[in-house]
Structure formats: structure tokens, C-alpha cells
């Protein structure tokens, strides 16, 4: 296997690995708050669930970039393209940028989501506002996703 392909695979692995970790941390944090609220007010499950699901997107974005890298490199079909080493480094760069932005955004969005869930527990009518505040953190995951895609189209 070419060095370039190996670097690209590492890029894909970092994209999904770090983003997945971010979402997992975030979901667990939000989930902890959910269980607390639901044990007191089970009727709020719908609203709380939507808030808890918010940090799930980072993992999906990471998955998306990983798949795009694998597709671009031909790893998904089993016939990797003959990549040059610099090309491989570029794919790795995509993975790193994607991974870090989504790791942090996922974990911190989970924190914010948790406190929005607690707020919803106190006053259910505030859930949409909590959602808006929580989604602000996702902006940086989206920007990470966007730049990753822009680099991918340029390689």
C-alpha cells in the first residue's frame, strides 16, 4: 500500500474517531441530566430527548467526512488510488481539523445541552430557547465540516 493511502486512512480514522468521541462524551453528559429530569417529570421525555440528541450530530459529521475520504481515495471499493504522499498528508489534515473541531464541539455542546435540559425541567416552555443556545456550539462543528469538505474538493 502506498504511503499516501495510509495517511488518508489515518485521516479518516481521526475524523470519525475524534468526532465520535466528542458526540459520545456530549451525549453522556446530556443523558445524565436527562435521567435526572425524567425521573421527576417523565412527561417531559419528548422535549428532553430532542435536547439530548443535539450533540449526536458531531459524530455524524465525522462519519460523513470519513466516508468522503474513503470514497475519494477508493478505499471503500477495495481499489485504492495511487496517491502521492503530499495528497495523503492533505487527507490527514482534513481528518485532524474535522476531528478536533468536532471533539470539542460535541463534548461542550453536551455540557450546554445538559444545562438546557435542567432548565427545561424547571420550566418546559423554555426548551426551545435552550435548544437555540445549545445549537450555537454546533456552529463550530459545522464550520469544521465545511472547511473539511472544501479541502476535500480541492485535493
Amino acid at each position, binding site marked *: 500500500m502506498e504511503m499516501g493511502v495510509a495517511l488518508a486512512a489515518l485521516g479518516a480514522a481521526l475524523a470519525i474517531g475524534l468526532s465520535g468521541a466528542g458526540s459520545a462524551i456530549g451525549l453522556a453528559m446530556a443523558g445524565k441530566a436527562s435521567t435526572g429530569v425524567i425521573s421527576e417529570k417523565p412527561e417531559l421525555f419528548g422535549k428532553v430527548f430532542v435536547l439530548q440528541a443535539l450533540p449526536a450530530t458531531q459524530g455524524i459529521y465525522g*462519519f460523513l467526512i470519513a*466516508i468522503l475520504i474513503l470514497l475519494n481515495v477508493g478505499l471503500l471499493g477495495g481499489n485504492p488510488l495511487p496517491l502521492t504522499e503530499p495528497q495523503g498528508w492533505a487527507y490527514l489534515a482534513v481528518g485532524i481539523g474535522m476531528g478536533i473541531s468536532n471533539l470539542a464541539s460535541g463534548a461542550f455542546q453536551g455540557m450546554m445541552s445538559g444545562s438546557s435540559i435542567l432548565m427545561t425541567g424547571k420550566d418546559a416552555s423554555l426548551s426551545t*430557547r435552550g435548544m437555540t443556545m445549545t445549537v450555537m456550539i454546533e*456552529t463550530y462543528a*459545522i464550520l469544521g*465540516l*465545511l472547511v473539511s*469538505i472544501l479541502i476535500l*474538493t480541492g485535493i
Partner: protein
Amino acid sequence: MIVPVKRINLVLLPEEKNAVFLALQKEELFMIKGFNVENHSLFNSDQLVKTKKVIKILEAENKKKNPFETISVDYQTIDNIQHNEFKVIDEVIDIENKKADFKDKIQRLNDQISTFIPFAFLSISQEKLSENELITFKAYKIPLEKKEFISNALLNLGLEHEMGEFDKAIYLVVAMIEEVSQDLAIALQAVDAEEVQLPSSALKYSDAIEAHKKNIEKFTAEMGKLDEQIKGLVKDLPQIKTYYDKEVNRLVREHVPFKQSNHFIVLEGYVREDQMSKLEQVLASHATTYEIEPVNDTKETLPTALKNNKFVKPFETITDSFSVPNTKEIDPNPIMSVWYWIFFGIMIADIGYGLVLLVGSILFIKLKKPRGNFKKLLQVFMYSSISAILFGLVTGSVFGIGFREIIPSLPDIFISPQDDPLTVLIASLVLGALHIVTALVLKAILMFKEGDVLGALAEAVSWILILLAGLVFVADMSSIIWPSNVIISYITLGFIGLGVVFIVFLSGRGSKNAFGWILKGFGGIYGATSYLSDLLSYSRLLALALSGGVIAFTMNLLAGMIAPALYGVGIIFAILIIIVGHVFNFAMSLLSAYVHGGRLQYLEFYGKFFQGGGYAFKPLGYHLDYINEIKEN
């Protein structure tokens, strides 16, 4: 649009109160001042609490629940409480009390059994032992490993005793005899014996346990019968639910606050100006004597009444969950709804998902008959699904499969976020700029209305010029749509310059000295950074469309890869991947489109002009918890 609301007092005859309240509740014309039915203490009434409890009990027993069961009643039914209606409720409560009684009894018997069991070996009843006045008997608990030691000791002392084993311990009942009590005490101390009380019982313990067990069996059977009875009452659930809502609405009418004089009652409240004549009609047909007194010189904040068409109406819930508009501003809903609709469509942009959402939301509304805000949300999804289908036509994608993959002969006219991310990104940003411009136009109108012309020029018109001229300038420079033209670029630069001039010279209009004036002028220019970040925020349109599209594509790809494997068995897994994958992707796309669509309105759009802080005009109406709809009779 925001309809003016009038503060009025209704003067009525006390004896006609009920008829008028009923009519008002049905017509939903009159908002009563300071009367908020949600969270009102009327829900704590004994009857309602009891009924709710019964509904909960019966719901738990309702195993063969029809998920599409809805309750529709007519106005006659809801206003009429029959006396036999709460019979069933009392019956359920009665059965429930009996059940609790039996449960209690069983619990007590079980408790007793557990105290008897260690002494089940005793061949004589505790009562008989205690009746013996000559000899006292004492009971001890001794660790199991000391069994031999204590048996020998008792044998040596020649004391009458009985012993049994239970749960890793020896239980001993021994006759106390004066002469050897010292020795016994020493022996007992040596084996760490712990004195215990014999539980009182007239029967021998083993017999008592038998009898108790029989009773428990009997009581359990009784409880089973009661459970059957409750199951038999499940069929009355719709009737009980209807009764609950009837009672709520009766209580609502009863709790309406009013002032009373000798001959009249006075209701304070609000009415929409355009419904004034209708209110008068309703009063005329239900009351012989009435008066509507306008209250003009009031300093209170009036409620905000919105009047919009069928399309805009459901979108009001999106604004309301941010903040209800105040009475002095422009209703943002008509314009916001269109933008929300467009953005929602772009973020899903798939014919397949759009159709699923359209059919799903229509079916849900028809079959489940939801009420209130949830219904409005579903209507938002219903309308927005059409936009998703339309943008799906633009991107040419059905469940993540491109049109040209299905029919290769189609011309390449589709713009998909996967193949042309840059085009879609630019389109997103341009739409974003136009979205912000609409917000600024609304802001300008508002400021002009308030007479703050300079402010409107500095804060709204300036940025409208910069954004619009900037768009044309960039389009001109890129010469994609038309060939680059020097005149156009100078004109647009001129407009941008004019905008900058407005900002620099007018931002500091309120300042007292030159220093503050200059500082504010350049502070205004610094606002460009926030406009830049606002614009970039619209890149999420591309990102979300792309993520939905690529994940759908990935699921199809995975399914396609696995289908030929394992001599055809792979097809089962492929179908599973397709179903699970698309359901997941659909749900996440829907959540993202809903949440991010809302965010773009709240932050980027409403941030520019919307003040909010009003409270909604909520006329006296029916409060429904279980009934899905009230039909005209």
C-alpha cells in the same frame, strides 16, 4: 399581522352569566384579564385529581390500546355533565381502595410469617407458654456454629427446651428454672446468645404460618377478581376522559374572575377590534341585558393578537417559543414563515424524505388529531416537506440516489451539494445575505415609523446598501452571470461607500462630543465583523444538506455492497441497512432542519429587528386534555 386589541369591560346580569360564558367559550372572542387557565389552581379540585387517578389506573390496564383512538365530541356533549358519569370513577376508586386494603393485609400477614418462621419448630403455642405462671420461657438466637456446645450445656443442666435452625442461626426456647439460672446465664454468654421476644400468637407457629398462607392465597385471588373488574371498566375510558375535560371546562367557567355590584357583574378583558361586532352579536343572542364599556385610558400592556392566513398560522409557534411579539412592532411571522420554509427545504433537499414527511405529517394530523402547538408544529413540517421536495428536484435526489443514476440519459442540470459544494455554498450565503436584508428592511420600517430616520439610515439602510451592492459587486467581479463590467463595479462600490458614510457619520448621532461621535462611527463599522459571522452561519445550509445526502448515499452504498454476499442472504441485511439507515438519517435530518432552521431565524433574523416581550391574546375557550376535537352539532 398584528391586530389591534381593545380593553373592554363586559357588564352582564348575574343570572345570564352561565349562558354567556358558554357562548364566549365556544366562540373564543374575549380574553379575560388576569385569567390564565394553564397552571390554574382549579386543576387541584378533588374531583379532577380523582378522575385523573382513575384514568391513570385504567390506562395501565389498557393492554389492547388502539394508537389511533381519538375522542371527538360535539358542543352539546361537552357542556353537559350527566350525573351517572362519575359513578364509574367512584367504582374504580372503590375497587382500588379494596385492592389497597388486600395488599395491606397480605403485607401484614407476610410480615408476621417472617417473624414466626424462626420459631416454627415450637410444639406449643406462644400463648400457652405465656399462660404458664410457674415457669417462664425465654427465647434466644445463637450463632449456628455454637449448636453442639449449647445442646450439651442444656443437656447437662437438664433444662426443658426446644431448638430449631433458621437462616444460619439457632433459635432456642428454654424454660427458666431458678436453681440453674446462673449456670444457664454463663452458658448463654459463652455462645453469644441474644435474647429475643417470642412473637405473640394464639396458634402454634407452624399452624399459624399455614393459616396465614391460606389467607394470603385467598386475598390474592380476591385481588385478581378486582383486577378483572377494573379490566372490565377499561371500555369506559373514553367516557371518563370526556368527563374529565367536561369538568375542567365547567370549572374554567366557574373560576372566571368578575366584579359584582348589586345588579350586575363586570368582566374585565380584551377583544380584537375586528371581532368587536361579532362579540356584540354573540352577546345579543345570549343575553337580554348587556353592555360593552370600552376602557381607553389604560396604561397596561395589551396582549398581542395575531391574524394570519392558513400557511403562516402554524409558523407562529416558532416565533412564540422564542418570544411573543409586542403590540408595537410588525408581525414577523408572514416573512419569517417563507424563509423558514425555504431553509428547511434546503437542509433536507430530498424528494424521498420530503414525501415521507408530507405523507407522515398528514396522516398523523388526520389519524391522531393532535391539538395546540404540537399540531402547529406538524403543520410546519407538512408545509415545509413541500419545500424539501422542491429542493429535492433541484438536487435531483431520491433517498440519496441521484436521478441520473436511475435514468442516465437525463441532462446534467441538477445542483447537488455532493457534486457542487461550492455552488451550493455560494447559494447558501447569497440566500443568507437576502435573509439578513429582509430583516434590515423590517428594522428600517420600524425605525421610520418611530420617527428615527437617522437611526434607520445608520443602522438599517446602510447595511442594506452594503449587502446588496456587495452581492452585485461580487457577482460582477466573478463574471459568472454576466461579463464583468467597470460601470457596474463603480456604481456598486459607490453604494457600498454610501452605506459606509451613513454608518460613520450617523452612528454617533446621539453623542455630546466629537470624540464620542468618532468612536461610535468607527464602532459602527466594526459591526461588519458580526455581519460577516452572520453570513458565514448560513453555510450550515450546505453542511446539513450535504450530511443528509451523503449519509443516505452511504447507506445505499453499504447495502449495495452487502447485497450480493452470502449467496443471496446478503439481500436481507441490505434491506435492514436501508431501512434502519434511512430512518435514522431521516430523523436526524428532520431534527437538524427544525433546530437549525429555528436558529437562523432567532439569531440571524430576529437579532436584527425583533423585540418581542409581548404576551399572546388567548381568548376564553375550551381547555382540552383528552378530547381531540369538538365538532359542530
